[in-house]
């Protein structure tokens, strides 16, 4: 991390707590770069996270107010703080299990109410901290500790979900698309209303090694192959889209 970014890290923080090859450290850097580029004042920012690996992105690392709350409840806690003090710029950073599984109802209702939050879902498509169980974003057929015969269930399309519920802005990118992600985070921070970004983040420890992706490099390559932009997807047949993850912005709240 460049030296001038150190101001965004809590004094004493020298490294991330994440496994080698984890995408969350990359995401951490991208969020801070977006904040840096927007020249936001960290004293006016509040970062709220739930439970899981992704919840450790802001807590304790970011040099701002951080609220590390119960599993699944980051959005309600963020809602309370934001409504009582609207001057706070509130960002929720948590994982797919936290935001979409146990906290899914809160995600829907915060989008419906159009609460002015920036919600970043670091999705590694698995419960990592508890040892690699299937989440609601695990793809069909994937092997996890609780789907040893392959996951039989459809994953949730979180962007479509929040848009249907009323989100002002939704985007999906992988950590392999850093520039697009920084732009999306900046946009989400800028837009007044409920903004949601799903960030695909590789988990070599709990996901990759059970799915024939033996090294972090394999996982990154796999993400790059799977991710296809919205424009390309529009020109592709449904056969070509099989197993692909469509990335891009899904609603434009720039108005």
């Amino acid at each position, binding site marked *: 991390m460049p030296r001038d970014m150190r101001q965004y890290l809590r004094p004493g923080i020298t490294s991330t707590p994440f496994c080698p090859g984890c995408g969350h450290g990359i995401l951490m850097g991208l969020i801070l770069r977006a904040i840096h580029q927007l020249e936001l004042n960290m004293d006016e920012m509040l970062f709220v996270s739930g439970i899981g690996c992704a919840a450790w992105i802001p807590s*304790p690392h970011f040099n701002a107010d*951080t609220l590390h709350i*119960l599993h699944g409840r980051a959005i*309600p806690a963020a*809602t*309370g*703080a934001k409504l*009582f*003090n609207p001057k706070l710029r509130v960002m929720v950073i948590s994982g797919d299990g936290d935001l979409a599984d146990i906290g899914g*109802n809160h995600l829907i209702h915060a989008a419906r109410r159009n609460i002015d939050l920036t919600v970043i879902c670091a999705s590694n498509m698995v419960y990592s901290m508890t040892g690699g169980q299937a989440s609601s974003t695990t793809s069909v057929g994937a092997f996890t500790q609780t789907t040893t015969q392959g996951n039989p269930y459809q994953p949730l399309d979180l962007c479509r979900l929040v848009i249907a519920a009323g989100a002002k802005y939704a985007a999906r990118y992988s950590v392999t698309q850093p520039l697009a992600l920084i732009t999306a985070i900046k946009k989400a921070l800028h837009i007044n209303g409920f903004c949601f970004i799903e960030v695909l983040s590789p988990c070599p420890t709990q996901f990759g090694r059970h799915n024939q992706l033996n090294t972090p490099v394999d996982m990154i390559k796999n993400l790059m192959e799977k991710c296809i932009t919205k424009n390309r997807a529009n020109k592709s047949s449904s056969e070509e889209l099989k197993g692909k993850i469509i990335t891009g912005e899904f609603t434009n709240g720039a108005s």
Partner: protein
Amino acid sequence: MVQHYLSGNEAIVEGAIRAGCRYYAGYPITPSTEIMERISVRFSEIGGVFIQMEDEIAAICSVIGASWAGAKALTATSGPGFSLMQEGIGYAAMTETPIVVVDVQRAGPSTGQATRVASGDVMQAKWGSSGDYQVIAVCPWSVQEAYEQTINAFNLAEKYRVPVILLTEEAIGHLRERMDVVNDIEIFNHKKKRSTDLFGTEERDVCPPMPTFGEGEKVLVTGSTHDGYGFRRTDDPIVQDQLVSRLNEKIINNSEKIIDYDNYYLEDAKVVIISYGFTARSSLFAVEALRAEGEKIGMLRLKTLWPFPDSLKKHIGANANVLFVPEMNKGQVAGEIRKYVSCQVVTFTQTNGEVIYPDIIIEQLRRYL
């Protein structure tokens, strides 16, 4: 002094506003819903933040978020909703977040009888969340006291940085009676000293000051085991032990200041009724009826249920040889009392969704007079 004619639920709202509460999040549930309805209107008049959340879990978590953003924050619910809030109450205890939770108790377990009365959540209020922690629970017996105890609940929450539960009952919530509002009521606000040591020191019964989000304090709040600065220390036995001990001792060591009783005819009483909440109204009626017959009977009314008033032995007088505990549950408080006294403790329990009438108490008491 201004006189009002209100229900208990309405009085709770007025008490909260008087205490400085300006944030409410809730979810509809009988028999507490009037609190949410009235506060939504009152906040629109006086400028508070009201939100109806998608469930009770969201309600309590948003109250916690608002509290750290500087609000005196309230939520209200009943039995099943109170169960859903328990994890949040544990979080508030662990992070020393001042919040007030109203539980207007109804007949349980589970959905039970939504419109009928009970006092079945006394133990849930203390033991509902995981691990060893303390809460404060206060218990009003009138509309007047619903108002006063709500203010007291906010003061205690602020003083000790702890979740405070106003443990009331359907019968108080829906009771309408006169309520007087006096002018000079003490309102306590927590210390907001700028400090880096937000979660206590080695001094175990000291409540640390609490900063507010958005003021440049870089506050670090977590429900995981944390040191005095808020850093997670999830594998340090010393930090774990110090934190849990302090969370308990800051309440237990101050219990003399927290616990409140009312005494009735205890000087020469041989039989003492120990009563709380709505039931204490019937108990006092019974005591006065039997006193008129010359019986040496008195009543100790518990205004605080948690921390448990373990010093009650000092108050029941030297002559007491029978303690009679009528309850709208299966003897939850009587069981606690037995831990602290050596004389006979007689229970009368009623879980039929109705209040205990005075004549039932009189009839039961005659066996011991």
